[in-house]
């Protein structure tokens, strides 16, 4: 499928923004400025971006613990995201959530999630709301290969079929659930599992932006037409360990070097764009520089931003609640 040149340039920019964001998060963590742990998305950019290209502002996504890429691809602003990861009052969630709970409902982003398998039921709910309210929205669940083995995923696949919900389940298979390989942990075939529910399902090469975008568009169109859910089993690559600080010794150095050299979706897109005459390398370099500058500003702003006021601790637990003062 032909992707219009402007869309492709925008997609490249978003993928670069995600990669740069993760590089900077990694550096901030190394510098001791990230209070909690983070799970980096570098290597998987084509999946988030390819899928979100098929979505509109009114559509919903739910994400995982590895959620920065999904958030950026769905339109969350990188400045407040970086501030959130640094625990600042100006963060997306005012410092309450951190890396694992970035959410922005105004952008259709229903939250990163600290629970593996937490997203699929929530997405069924968003799709049910869309169907009931007649908004025409589609709900996409990003989950990892680890989550496909959770009961919540199996239950949600079934529920989405039974209620014919406008859902797309995107299983991002980066080969690793935490420190355990999906080859060890997942029996059978993920596409076949979905088909077992009678669900439309296909396997997709997550290194190819256009393949992901094409498959996502077909699945989203199917859902929007009222024909029910689909599952996309997208193979991809995780460049870092499970979390920032994981020594990642369970993969050989040779395998990791080979992955970065030969299975980098961003490099691949650059080459394809140059070879196809869609963008010359200098134009892409200019985008890279622009993104770099944007991220530098975001990082500096986040570092300079105030920490939350301790009094905010008890805000936002409820909308209304009468209780004795604390402590």
């Amino acid at each position, binding site marked *: 499928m032909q992707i219009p040149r402007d869309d492709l340039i925008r997609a490249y920019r978003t993928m670069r923004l995600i990669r740069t964001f993760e590089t900077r998060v990694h550096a901030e963590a190394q510098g001791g400025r990230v209070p909690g742990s983070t799970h980096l998305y570098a290597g998987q950019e084509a999946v988030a971006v390819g899928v979100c290209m098929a979505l509109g502002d009114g559509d919903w996504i739910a994400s995982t613990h590895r959620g920065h890429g999904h958030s950026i691809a769905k339109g969350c602003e990188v400045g407040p995201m970086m501030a959130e990861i640094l625990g600042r009052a100006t963060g997306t969630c005012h410092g309450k959530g951190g890396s694992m709970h970035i959410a922005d409902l105004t952008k259709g982003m229903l939250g990163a999630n*600290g629970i593996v398998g937490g997203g699929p039921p929530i997405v069924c709910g968003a799709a049910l709301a869309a169907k009931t309210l007649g908004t025409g929205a589609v709900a996409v669940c990003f989950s990892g290969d*680890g989550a496909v083995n959770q009961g919540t995923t199996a239950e949600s696949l079934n529920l989405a079929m039974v209620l014919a919900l406008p859902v797309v389940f995107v299983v991002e298979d980066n080969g690793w659930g935490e420190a355990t*390989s999906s080859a060890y942990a997942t029996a059978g075939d993920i596409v076949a599992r979905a088909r077992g529910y009678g669900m439309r399902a296909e396997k997709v090469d997550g290194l190819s932006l256009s393949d992901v975008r094409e498959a996502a568009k077909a699945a989203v169109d199917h859902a929007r037409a009222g024909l029910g859910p689909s599952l996309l089993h997208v193979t991809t690559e995780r460049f870092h360990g499970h979390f920032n600080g994981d020594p990642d010794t369970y993969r050989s150095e040779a395998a990791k070097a080979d992955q970065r050299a030969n299975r980098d979706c961003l490099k691949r897109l650059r080459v394809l764009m140059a070879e196809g005459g869609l963008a010359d390398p200098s134009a892409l370099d200019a985008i890279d520089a622009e993104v770099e500058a944007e991220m530098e500003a975001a990082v500096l702003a986040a570092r300079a931003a105030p920490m939350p006021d301790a009094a905010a601790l008890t805000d936002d637990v409820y909308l209304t609640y009468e209780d004795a003062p604390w402590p």
Partner: protein
Amino acid sequence: MAVRSFRAALNEALHQAMAADPRVILMGEDVTGGKGGDGVEDAWGGAFGVSKGLLGAFGPGRVIDTPITESAFVGAAAGAALTGLRPVVEIMFVDFLGVCLDQLMNQAAKFRYMFGGRATTPMVLRATFGAGARSASQHSQALYPILTHIPGLKVVIPSNPADAKGLLIQAIRDDDPVVFLEHKMLYDETGEVPDRPYATPFGEARVVREGGDAVIVALGRMVGRAEAAARTLAAEGIQAAIVDPRTTSPLDHGTILEYAEETGRVVVVDEASPRCGMAADIASLVAERAFDALKAPILKVTPPHTPVPYSPVLEDAYLPDAARIARAVRRSVAHRAARGGRA
């Protein structure tokens, strides 16, 4: 006797318990780590390194990495316990109980009672808990009041390396289902730990410190904070005893009541949410059974009724600290002075 970390003490307990009884198995996510990779084996030895080396000692038949499927493997531990094994099953964070509570609450905890005493379920569910690691709302909870509330479960919360080892060995030897909670901020704490295998009995509190002016009841990581508070208070001339119940189910009523009666002033420190929590439970015990000895209201030091926040400023404000504990003890002591005493 040697100085060991909390983590090493737990590791030694697992080694000794598995060596002593071939029916003991360990199961959970990444309890070895690296399954299916082309790098090193036993890469993690558990997310916090507690089970490192067990794979080499006991092999993959007894040290089992599972898929991320808490309902399945916690339930499998219950089933295996019912039918001849003594599984130790690990969920990385106690928060993940949300995924699999049915298998613990409605199955394992109730088999014996529902089956008229004709079943035993000797399983141990190990999990990390607690705030302080900037892990936010889904990886920081202290859910032991919920677990303590469930009849059929025993609930253990060690506060130091020696207790960690002895209580874990007891948990594995125990014929009832036991939830064993490890505070993630204690893993690097060190202390003297006996080399031999030994079991620390459940339902027996440890008196951490003697003192006649007040008693602080504290659990898990809060014990160390209570000790810091007690040192500050001692410099001011206030001697506070500290009682660490060590298990919330069963709970050592005797020791708590003894010190409540002796001092007449009770401060309970609890890292869990305040509503229906352990602090409330212990306060009600004292109010009901030691009312006549009390010289001041029983005071609770807990977090507010909120989820655990991420940002350090907020998380530090959330957790009870030594200053708040000391303030509560001073308030308790001042209460007597204000009333002129009635003991």
